[in-house]
């Protein structure tokens, strides 16, 4: 096969054995790879009703055909499992260098099954696959773990070429918002790191020396030359290394959609223009992912003695949730809290959202000082820094926070103060200022998400009419990008005008499998629906396609989005309609037949 390696590495952690399966070419073509192919395999191989922490759950690390293909932005890997946070299908994307290295080792997908009796790490060196003891690594932060493993590799050159993904105390302690980390990048959302921890798997190391073959190398070179030209002419090549995703702060402020104080407001003073503050006072250097020139990531340093440190980030969404959503505008504290989340290996977005929820419960009197150990008001920067570590280690009140915002709010009798969808916390943008964003959060298969619907246009932001078809296409297209191994930052956000034109050209040049724009988008639709079918079988229903009462009923109090609520009811029937789902949100037999999912839809 071209583009795909055609091999799946399957590791049984219970028995300590492994095998290599052939990838079915038709399955690969229909589900592309990454998120799509891995979710299809998860659908086929596990009972969607199982406990996510059961050894029967599986954890898939999936590359796409464009991962490591030489395509600009072809760095991505998707981690897929049943989420312990949402109970739905999780897909959590990670950049850096791990995905391409797995591909170069000769595998499209790594499937982890069972549960090791003791802490272990997995070493993959092309065909050499070993399960190694990791007792000495257990309890270490993600920042400590990577160099410790690297130091165990004798050959310095091989050590440098080895890529490592690991969990921190968060994953070990089954924190439901734990992530998988690799070189400062995170497979952040939906608690995929906790599933890795439940399998007693501390880390995966990979090094590969094999190549990815291309179906039409000459055609591919022409596409890349054209893409390079466009990138060279784009102002983003200069701008992204300066501010990365931080421009989101000012954009959110400008439209009054900066999630503030547990989404009770859309603006807070003291953070507008925050990208400049981060650049001038915190930035140390920019870095990037495999085959990407944009250098969106930043290593930063905090000199404030209260919050001293050095590390990666924060990205804009992390900033939004650990900062404004908790009422915090102290940049040093926000950056420090982000470092600790990375060290613990917990999702910055959900961590901030969960603490914000606790702050509101406290201010409304539902959570007491004795529950937390101290008063927990909005704006308490030190509390945020304290609680993210306690969450990762499940210490004290952190043990309750570790369950995520939904379970926290429910425990104290007020689930209405949980701000998210399908039990996953909202990302940074407040949905009340963009109707389509509300629809996107409510219908995202993995719960509230910043990566499943990026089509929010400034001029139609208060309209509900006509939003459903736009959301649907965007969801299908992002599913394609997540499945190909391309990066959404480049292929979804930055080059909106030609984005749907270039992806099928790349897919076809690399795989030769017959992709066109139409067949690519149909594959995206198929991927969206296989996730939906998984979720329905897992017990989710149309009742879960919703938003908190606050978002639907309490108008935004002030700012550029003042007076807005999300009019979800005006969009949902249309959305189910364009999806080809019935009024209960169930894909119709006709739709399933069109997608080739009749068998999967049978019940």
């Amino acid at each position, binding site marked *: 096969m071209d583009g795909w390696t055609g091999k799946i590495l399957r590791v049984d952690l219970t028995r300590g054995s492994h095998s290599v399966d052939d990838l079915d070419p038709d399955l690969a073509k229909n589900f592309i790879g990454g998120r799509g192919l891995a979710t299809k395999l998860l659908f086929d191989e596990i009972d969607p009703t199982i406990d996510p922490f059961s050894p029967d759950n599986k954890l898939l690390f999936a590359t796409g055909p464009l991962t490591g293909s030489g395509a600009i932005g072809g760095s991505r890997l998707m981690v897929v499992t049943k989420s312990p946070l949402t109970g739905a299908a999780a897909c959590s994307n990670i950049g850096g260098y791990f995905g391409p290295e797995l591909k170069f080792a000769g595998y499209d997908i790594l499937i982890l099954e069972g549960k090791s009796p003791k802490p272990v790490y997995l070493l993959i060196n092309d065909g050499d696959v070993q399960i190694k003891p990791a007792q000495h690594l257990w309890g270490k932060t993600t920042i400590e773990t990577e160099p410790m493993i690297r130091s165990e590799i004798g050959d310095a050159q091989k050590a440098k070429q080895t890529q490592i993904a690991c969990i921190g105390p968060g994953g070990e302690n089954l924190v439901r918002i734990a992530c998988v980390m690799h070189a400062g990048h995170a497979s952040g959302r939906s608690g995929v790191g906790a599933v890795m921890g439940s399998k007693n798997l501390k880390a995966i190391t990979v090094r590969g020396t094999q190549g990815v073959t291309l179906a039409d190398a000459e055609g591919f070179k022409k596409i890349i030359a054209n893409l390079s030209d466009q990138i060279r002419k784009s102002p983003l090549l200069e701008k992204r*290394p300066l501010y990365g995703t931080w421009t989101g702060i000012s954009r959110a402020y400008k439209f009054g959609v900066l999630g503030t104080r547990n989404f009770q407001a859309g603006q807070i003073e003291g953070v507008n223009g925050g990208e400049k503050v981060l650049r001038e006072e915190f930035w140390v250097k920019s870095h990037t992912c495999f085959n990407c020139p944009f250098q969106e990531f930043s290593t930063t340093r905090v000199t404030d003695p209260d919050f001293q440190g050095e590390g990666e980030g924060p990205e804009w969404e992390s900033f939004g949730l650990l900062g404004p959503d908790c009422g915090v505008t102290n940049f040093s504290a926000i950056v420090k809290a982000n470092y600790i989340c990375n060290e613990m290996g917990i999702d910055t977005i959900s961590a901030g959202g969960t603490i914000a929820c606790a702050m509101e419960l406290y201010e409304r009197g539902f959570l007491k000082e004795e529950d937390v150990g101290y008063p927990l008001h909005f704006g308490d920067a030190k509390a945020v820094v304290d609680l993210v570590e306690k969450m990762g280690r499940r210490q004290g009140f952190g043990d309750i926070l570790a369950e995520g915002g939904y379970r926290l709010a429910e425990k104290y009798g007020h689930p209405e103060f949980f701000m998210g969808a399908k039990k996953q916390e909202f990302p940074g943008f407040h949905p009340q200022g963009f109707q389509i964003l509300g629809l996107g959060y409510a219908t995202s298969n993995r719960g509230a998400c910043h990566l499943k619907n990026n089509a929010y246009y400034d001029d139609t932001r208060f309209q509900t009419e006509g939003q459903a078809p736009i959301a649907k296409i965007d969801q299908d297209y992002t599913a394609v990008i997540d499945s190909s191994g391309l990066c959404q930052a480049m292929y979804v956000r930055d080059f909106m005008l030609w984005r749907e034109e270039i992806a099928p050209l790349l897919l076809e040049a690399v795989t030769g499998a017959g992709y066109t724009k139409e067949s690519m988008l149909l594959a995206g639709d198929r991927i969206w629906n296989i996730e939906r079918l998984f979720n329905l079988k897992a017990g989710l229903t149309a009742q879960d396609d919703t938003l908190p009462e606050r978002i639907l009923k309490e108008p935004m109090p002030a700012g550029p989005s003042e007076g807005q609520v999300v009019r979800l009811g005006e969009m949902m029937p249309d959305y189910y309609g364009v999806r080809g789902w019935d009024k209960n949100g169930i894909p119709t037999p006709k739709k399933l037949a069109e997608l080739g999912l009749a068998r999967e839809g049978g019940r």
Partner: protein
Amino acid sequence: MAEIKIDRDKCCECYLCETTCSLQYSENTVNPKKSRIITLFNKPDVDVINCDHCQGEPQCVIACLSDALTSI
């Protein structure tokens, strides 16, 4: 023999140069470990390598969007 020089301050380690180079020389295959300029990354103290396999049109230099490579 032409030389390829790397400016490490400009290099963002995206390895577009390696993937492009490998595709040029291993038939239809992208494999950074088979790249002819891999020395630049395996030996951090080596900033200049002899390489003229592209006969005056170094594909790695053209591919680099960070302007970190020059042909001298």
